[in-house]
């Protein structure tokens, strides 16, 4: 019986009742340095697609044209918030957490080059890859079916009855040639290097 009174007295104490009813930790706020979904800065997008190429999640980022201006669009439900698109963008179009600040402090950047591999046992020298290549088109608008060219400024051409890669460094990695090849003989590989302490570009 005494213990009942003890409990009653204990539980009727004002501090106890207050603690019982209002015990809550302070609401946890997301600190500003957390990597949020990448947001757009005011810098103009040059639609180089570096962000799309580096993105590890399928369908997380798209670069869309709207009213004449290009801008990346992040899809929630696909995005991992890894921040690689923010790091890969050479212009700084996207921003997330303190990635841009760190990048500036450490002078880090990604540098992508492309390697064109042709399987000569599968290649039948049709020249579709050379003709479909948009960079080839700029260098030699005269290139017609067959992929022959007298111009040595093109990325690749059919020379001497053989597929020849001349300027691999000009490849932008669009992989149009892969789609144009009827034998899947050509493959474009992206070689990505992380650089530190080197000026960007």
């Amino acid at each position, binding site marked *: 019986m005494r213990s009942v009174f003890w409990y009653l007295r204990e539980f009727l104490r004002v501090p106890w009742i207050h603690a019982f009813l209002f*015990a*809550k*930790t302070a609401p*946890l*706020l*997301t600190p500003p340095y*957390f990597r949020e979904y990448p947001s757009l800065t005011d810098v103009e997008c040059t639609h180089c697609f570096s962000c799309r190429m580096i993105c*590890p*999640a*399928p*369908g997380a980022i798209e670069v869309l044209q709207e009213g004449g201006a290009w801008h990346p669009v992040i899809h*929630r*439900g*696909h*995005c*991992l*918030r890894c921040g690689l698109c923010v790091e890969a963008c050479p212009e700084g179009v996207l921003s997330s957490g303190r990635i841009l600040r760190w990048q500036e402090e450490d002078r880090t950047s990604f540098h992508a080059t492309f390697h064109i591999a042709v399987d000569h046992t599968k290649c039948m020298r049709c020249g579709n890859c050379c003709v479909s290549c948009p960079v080839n088109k700029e260098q030699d608008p005269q290139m017609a079916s067959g992929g022959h060219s007298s111009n040595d400024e093109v990325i690749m051409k059919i020379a001497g009855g053989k597929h020849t890669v001349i300027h691999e460094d000009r490849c932008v990695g669009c992989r149009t040639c892969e789609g144009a090849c009827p034998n899947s003989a050509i493959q474009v590989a992206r070689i990505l290097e992380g650089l530190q302490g080197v000026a960007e570009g």
Partner: protein
Amino acid sequence: MNLLQDAKNWVRARSIHVAYVDVGSCNGCDIEVLACLAPRYDIEQYGILVHNNPREADILLVVGAMTPQWIDKLPALWAKIPAPKAAIAIGNCPISGCVYNRRETYILGPVSKYIPIAAEVPGCPPRPTEILSAVLSVAPTVFRDYEVKRP
């Protein structure tokens, strides 16, 4: 009757029983759900109890990309939960399949094809605060006036 309904609404918003089911995740989101239970986030101070029994649950947290083994089991588990009930998809996987949604993976998502999903919390993984706020905002709206709305 109205007063009784108000009392039910009040109670249901403050006493939420949660069950969570992993339909093939990488355990990243599981760990974030468990972090909600830990003292730092302390989900129980909001009246949310996680005891993983679908028969007693109000809210089902679905974690993970939908693997084929769960196609018949997840609707069965959903049927066991007494109404009113709501399912929340935690993380990218139940929404889109995320990084598993590629060729040659056994993913048959999204989860909303199999059970009705009331809310989706994107993120890989979502933060415990996001999970917490999703549960807290879904429960009162979904369970509100259940007896009135019931067909």
